């Protein structure tokens, strides 16, 4: 019997569940979102799909999605970045201080991404050049350091009131009078447009550039990447720097949305980001996952939180649910890997 035939036979003996896994791997997450939307629409028919609520979901996920996108790239390299929640806070504080010092709005706007960029580069250099045994340790350290610095420079008190140009980024509305008539209340949040543009740019980066391909190769087998002449350390520094940069953009969006910088900003949001990435189908072992999956993961978290809030479900139950979904998502990943090694 030849090899191909044998594999076919094995396939027919597999259970229906196992054979459906490739289908779910590709479309399952979209299916899950549709089911969630349908269920929440049935439970909250007047509210959930209202223009106001949908735009609210997008505004909420816009800054969180920046963290998830950055952490996703790091996880593709089989790394981890625990410091993004602190980077968002430090960049927010930096922005607030620049704003308070009376700098022009276009400088203030650049401060947050610039701080994020430098924080990320610091992580990347620590992980590669200082040869920290695992990114977990380096970024656990900077999780404390960055938030500590943020509190040191701000004195640990909130700073409020930013220029209109900053607020537009997180809270701006693109009116749709042309479609809904003069004075219509329907609008598209600026932050949604920004999120879509950034996700599109990073989709191109990861799928259509050599560095993007190398990021996946490093996650699959760093030894193979090295043997192919790829400077693995340099690519890792790029990845952590971009992750920090995106967290800085998240800080900018958050500044616009809340019009204030506060010491607890972004607290534990690194965990939400990791959760969204894992729910979105990226493998914690590296090398696997898509930008679209991250978007889906972020949306699932956002829709879930929003829907449960609408139904007055307690925050404690929300925690239980989100935790369960993470474990389920990773269990599916485990099954997937078992299948891959069995053939």
């Amino acid at each position, binding site marked *: 019997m030849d090899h191909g035939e044998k594999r076919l036979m094995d396939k027919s003996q597999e259970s229906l569940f196992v054979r459906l896994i490739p289908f779910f791997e590709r479309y399952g997450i979209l299916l899950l979102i549709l089911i969630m939307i349908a269920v929440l629409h049935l439970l909250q028919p007047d509210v959930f799909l209202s223009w106001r609520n949908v735009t609210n979901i997008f505004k909420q996920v816009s800054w969180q999605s920046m963290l998830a996108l950055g952490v996703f790239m790091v996880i593709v390299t089989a790394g981890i970045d625990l410091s993004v929640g602190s980077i968002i806070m430090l960049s927010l504080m930096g922005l607030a201080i620049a704003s308070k010092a009376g700098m022009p709005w276009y400088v203030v706007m650049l401060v947050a991404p610039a701080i994020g960029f430098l924080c990320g580069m610091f992580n990347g250099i620590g992980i590669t050049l200082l040869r920290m045994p695992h990114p977990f340790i380096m970024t656990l350290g900077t999780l404390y350091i960055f938030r500590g610095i943020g509190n040191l420079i701000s004195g640990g008190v909130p700073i409020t009131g930013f220029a209109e140009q900053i607020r537009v980024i997180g809270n701006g509305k693109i009116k749709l009078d042309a479609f809904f008539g003069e004075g219509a209340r329907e609008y598209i949040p600026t932050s949604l447009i920004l999120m879509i543009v950034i996700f599109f740019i990073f989709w191109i980066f990861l799928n259509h*550039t050599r560095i993007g391909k190398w990021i996946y190769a490093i996650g699959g087998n760093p*030894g193979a990447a090295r043997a192919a002449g790829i400077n693995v350390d340099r690519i890792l520094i790029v990845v952590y720097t971009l992750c920090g940069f995106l967290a800085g953009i998240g800080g900018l969006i958050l500044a616009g949305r809340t019009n204030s910088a506060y010491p607890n900003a972004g607290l534990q949001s690194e965990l939400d980001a990791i959760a969204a990435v894992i729910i979105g189908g990226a493998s914690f072992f590296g*090398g696997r996952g898509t930008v679209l999956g991250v978007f889906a993961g972020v949306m699932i978290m956002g829709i879930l939180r929003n829907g449960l809030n609408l139904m007055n479900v307690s925050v404690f139950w929300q925690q239980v649910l989100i935790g369960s979904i993470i474990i389920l998502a990773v269990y599916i990943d485990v099954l997937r890997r078992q299948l891959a090694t069995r053939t």
Partner: protein
Amino acid sequence: MSDQLVLEAKSVSKFFGTITALQNVDLHLNKGEVLGVVGDNGAGKSTLMKVLSGLYKPSEGSLFFDKEKVTLNSPRDSQNLGLEMVYQDLALAGNLPIGDNIFLGREPTRKVGPFNFLDHKKKKQLTEEHLAKLKINVKSADQKVEELSGGQRQAVAIARATAFNAKIVLMDEPTAALAVKEVGKVLDLILNLKKLGVSVIVISHRMDDIFTVCDRVMALFQGTNFAESELKKTSRDEVIGWIMGKKD
């Protein structure tokens, strides 16, 4: 014969501190020739390969590519001269498709404005052409390497090594990790390379491999040239004897 010489090592020695790994070893390789290198563990086979690929610098002696003396500072240098090494651990990324692995680090790109983007179409076309040239059968060039059998992976590793017109390919135990039925396919692939005019050096413990694909076999013993023969002028028993340091 000597006008076809593509690679030559002359009295190469390699010392690691007080340890002598290679002592005055000579090696030559002709165009389209498959040379088997045998020897016990620690005989110096791998050290010799690493010297030839530029990973180690020889302590003494010299290397000639196409009869020209060269100094290799890194594997990059030997690659530029047309020598590729197929590593024992294969050095493939399982999560990437076959084509991506073959072109990893040397991806074809196209320019759009100031940016360089991957040329997926060209990569696929080049991959299919190259696999067809080597008569490697896979379901699709887009198949992920982790879905392949051990023999297919070995074939992809060899395809990767030869994708950029390599003239010389070094293989370290190419069949060691394979199921019996897959060994034949890899050996066929080596014979295909030979037909295409590629010179191959095969390190192997398996006499079946040596006696199926090689034109010539040389034995190292304790870091020195021990014996060498055209394949048709020797026998398995004799070669096994060389490995153990016995000569009639």
